[in-house]
C-alpha cells in the first residue's frame, strides 16, 4: 500500500462528510437560527398609518401572527407582494409588516398602489428592531405563536410551498 495515498484517502472521507453537511444544511440553517423556539424580541415601534401610535409586541400576544420584514427599496419584496395578499385573503393568520429602513411616504404610496396585505405596519427606521430579530436581508418572515414564541423563519420571498408546508400546518396545530 502506498502511504502517499493516505492524504488522498482522508480527503475523500472529508469530502463525503462535507457533502452530507451540505445536504443537511438547509434544515440546519433553520434549526440553528438563534431565535427559533425562543420568545420573539420585544419591540415598541410607531405605526406606519399613524406615527403617534406606538405598537408594542405584547399587544400581539395571544394569537398567531406573521412578522414580515420589507422595504420599498427591496425588489424581492415587490415580487413577494402578491403572495402576501393571498395570505391576507386566506384570513388565517394576520400579517404584521416591519417596514425596515425605509421612507415612510414611499411605504405609504407602495401600500396604496399595490394593496395592503398587513393588519398593521410598524416602522423601523433605524434598523434596531431588525437587528434584534436577527434579520439578514429583506424579505424575511417570522411565524410567532400565541405564546409569543418564534416557531418558524423564512428567508427570502414567501412562497406557496412554504405557506402550505411550513406555516399552515403549524398554525393549524399539525406540526410543531
Amino acid at each position, binding site marked *: 500500500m*502506498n502511504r*502517499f*495515498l493516505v*492524504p*488522498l484517502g482522508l*480527503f*475523500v472521507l*472529508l*469530502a*463525503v*462528510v*462535507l*457533502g*452530507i*453537511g*451540505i445536504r*443537511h*444544511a*438547509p434544515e*440546519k*440553517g433553520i*434549526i*440553528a437560527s438563534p431565535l427559533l423556539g425562543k*420568545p420573539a424580541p*420585544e*419591540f*415598541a415601534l410607531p405605526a406606519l398609518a399613524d406615527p403617534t401610535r406606538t405598537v*408594542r*409586541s*405584547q399587544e400581539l*400576544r395571544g394569537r398567531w401572527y406573521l412578522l414580515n420584514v420589507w*422595504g*420599498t*427599496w*427591496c*425588489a424581492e419584496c415587490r415580487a413577494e407582494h402578491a403572495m402576501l395578499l393571498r395570505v391576507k385573503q386566506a384570513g388565517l393568520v394576520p400579517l404584521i409588516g416591519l417596514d425596515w*429602513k425605509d*421612507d415612510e411616504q*414611499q411605504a405609504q404610496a407602495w401600500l396604496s398602489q399595490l394593496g395592503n396585505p398587513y393588519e398593521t405596519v410598524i416602522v423601523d427606521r433605524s*434598523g*434596531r428592531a431588525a*437587528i434584534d430579530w436577527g434579520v*439578514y*436581508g*429583506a424579505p424575511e418572515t417570522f411565524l410567532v405563536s400565541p405564546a*409569543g414564541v418564534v416557531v418558524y423563519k423564512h*428567508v427570502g420571498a414567501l412562497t406557496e410551498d412554504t405557506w402550505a408546508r411550513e406555516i399552515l400546518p403549524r398554525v393549524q396545530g399539525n406540526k410543531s
Partner: protein
Amino acid sequence: MLPELGHFVLILALLLALLQAFFGLAGPALGRERWTGAVSAALAGQAVMVGTAVACLVHAFVTDDFSVLYVAENSNSALPLFYRVTALWGAHEGSLLLWILLLALWSVAVALRSGSLPASFAARVLGVLGLVSFGFLLFTLATSNPFARLEPAAPDGRDLNPILQDPGLAVHPPILYTGYVGFAVAFAFACAAMLEGRLDQAWARWTRPWTSWAWAFLTCGIALGSFWAYYELGWGGFWFWDPVENASFMPWLVGTALVHSLAVTDKRGLFKSWTLLLAILAFSLSMVGTFLVRSGVLVSVHSFAADPSRGMFILAFLIIMIGGALTLYAWRAPLLRSSAGFELGARESFLLFNNVLLVTAAATVFAGTLAPLIADALNLGTLSVGPPYFNPTFLLSMLPLVGLLALGIHANWKRGRLRDKQRLLLVTALVAALLAAGVAFGVYSGPHVLTPVAMTLGFWIALASLVDPLDRWRRGLSLPRAVLGMTIAHLGLAMAVIALTTVQSFTVERDVALAPGESARVGGYELRFEGVRHVEGPNYDAIAGSFALTHHGQPVRTMQPQKRQFWVQHQVTSETAITMDHGNNLLLALGDDLGAGRWSVRVQVRPLVTLVWLAALVMAIGAFIAASDRRYRVTAAALAPGTVLPERVRG
C-alpha cells in the same frame, strides 16, 4: 452601462484564466514553447479584466448606483466615501471578487519575479494559478454575480452591515485574504514541481519568500480581526474558537509548519515529500475554510448568508483542486528519496517535532471545528464543541512546541551536538526561570500550576533567540535578513507566550458588595461606587450603576454597567461595561440589589491583553523581513551549480 461592462470583463477574465491554465499546463507538457510563452500574456489580460471589473463595482458604489443589487444591499447614499469603497467586500459576492483580484495580483507578482526560474517551471506555476483563478471566477459568475441588476432600481440602499462600519474591520478582510490567497502561490509551486518532476531543493528556495509573505499577511489579518472584534466591539476576550476564526487559524498553523519545513528542504534537502504535502494542505485549508464559512454547513456568528447551492459548487471545486493535487502527490512523492540523514539532536529533528506538533494542533482544531458536521453525518444529533475542548487540546501540542523551540534554535544542522552548548542552554533557562518567577510571584500573584512553566518557556525563547544574533554582533559578523527576521518572529512568539500565560493566569475576577461612596481594590484598580439610577430603554427599564475607576490614584474613566428588565417577559439581562486601560481589559457587571443601597458587582481585570495582538504583529514583521532576504533573489543559473543537484524524476 458600467455594471454590464463589469459583468462582461469578468466573463473575459474567466476565459483568459482558462487560457492561462491551458497554456501554462499544456505548453510545457507538450513541449510547445510558443504556448508556454503565451502564459504571461493571458495572465496580464486576466489581471487587467479583473481590475476593470473591480473598478466598475467600486464606481457603482461611489456613484450610489442602486440599480445594482449588490450595491443596494450593501451601501447607502448617506454612507461615507471610505465605507462606500470598503463596502465592496462587505458581503459574499464582493469578497469573492476581492479574492479573485488578490489572486490575480499575487499571480502577476509571481510572473514579474519569475525571470530567474526555468521557463517551463514558471509557466506551470502560472498555469496552476490560472486554474485556481478560473475556479473562483466560474464560482462568482455562476452563483454570486456582483453585477446583478435590480429592477426597478432601489431609491436608496439598505446600508452596509453596521458592524463593518469601523475602520479596523473595514481593512481587515483584504489583509486576511492576501494571506489566504498567498498560500495559493506555495500550492502552485508545489504542483508545478510535481508536474515538472523537479523535486530538488530549488523549488523550496523559490517558494520560501512567497510563503513567508503570505504567512505574514495571514498573521496580521488574524490579529487585526481578533483585535477589532474583541477590543472595539468589547466582547471582553480575544479568541472564541468560532468556526470562522478557526477557518483562518488552521491555514495559519499549517502555514507555520510549512515555513519551517521549507527551510529544512531548502537547506538540507530533507522532508521533501512532507513539504510538498504541507504546501498543498495550507492552501487546501484556506479553501476548506472558505467553504465552511460560505456554504452554511457550520453556523457561526460571523457567517455570511449561507447558500447550499454555493456550498455544492465549492465542494466540487475543492474535490477537483485538492483531490487533483493529492493524486499528483500520491503519484510523484514515492519517487522522492532523501539523500541525507541527520542525528537526533540536530536542528532537523527539532524542526520535525515542530512540524508534527503544529500539524497535530491544526488537526485538533480541525476535528473540533468539524465535530458538529461529523456528528450530523453520523446522525449523532447536534453537537457543539467549545473552549473546554479547544483550550486543553491546543495547549497539549503547543507547550512542547514552545519548549523544543528554545533548544532547537541552538541546534546545528545535521549533527546533534547540543552538548557543546549545554552551559549556554542551562544559563538561559535559569535566567528565564528567574524572570518568570519574578513576574509570576512578584508582579502578579496567585499563579496556576502551569503559569511558571509557560512563563519560563516564554522568557527562555526570548533569551535563546537573542544568543545567535548577539554572538554574530559581538564577532562583527553580518546579520542576514533571514536570521534577523527569524529572530524577530521568535521574539514575537515569546511575547505571545508570555502575554497569553499572563491573561490566562492572572485574570482577576471578584464579586464585591458596595454601598454608594464605598470603594474596592481589584487587580491594581480602585473602583468607587457612585450609586445607581433609573434608565428607560425602548422596551426595557434599566438600573445603571456608576463606578469611578482609578489606577494608582489617576482617574481612568467612569463605567456604567446596566441591569435591564424587559417589560413583557420580565427577563433580566446584565449589560456589562468594558474598557481598556494600559493594555488591561476591565469588565464590570452589576449583580444584585443587596438592600440599603448596597449592590453586588462582578469585576474582571485581564492584564496584558494588548500584548497578544502586538506579539502577532511582531511575528508578522519578522516574516516580512525574512522574506526580503537577498538570498532568495539569486537566479536559477547562479543557484544550480554546487548548491543543487537536480534529481530529475522520470515519471
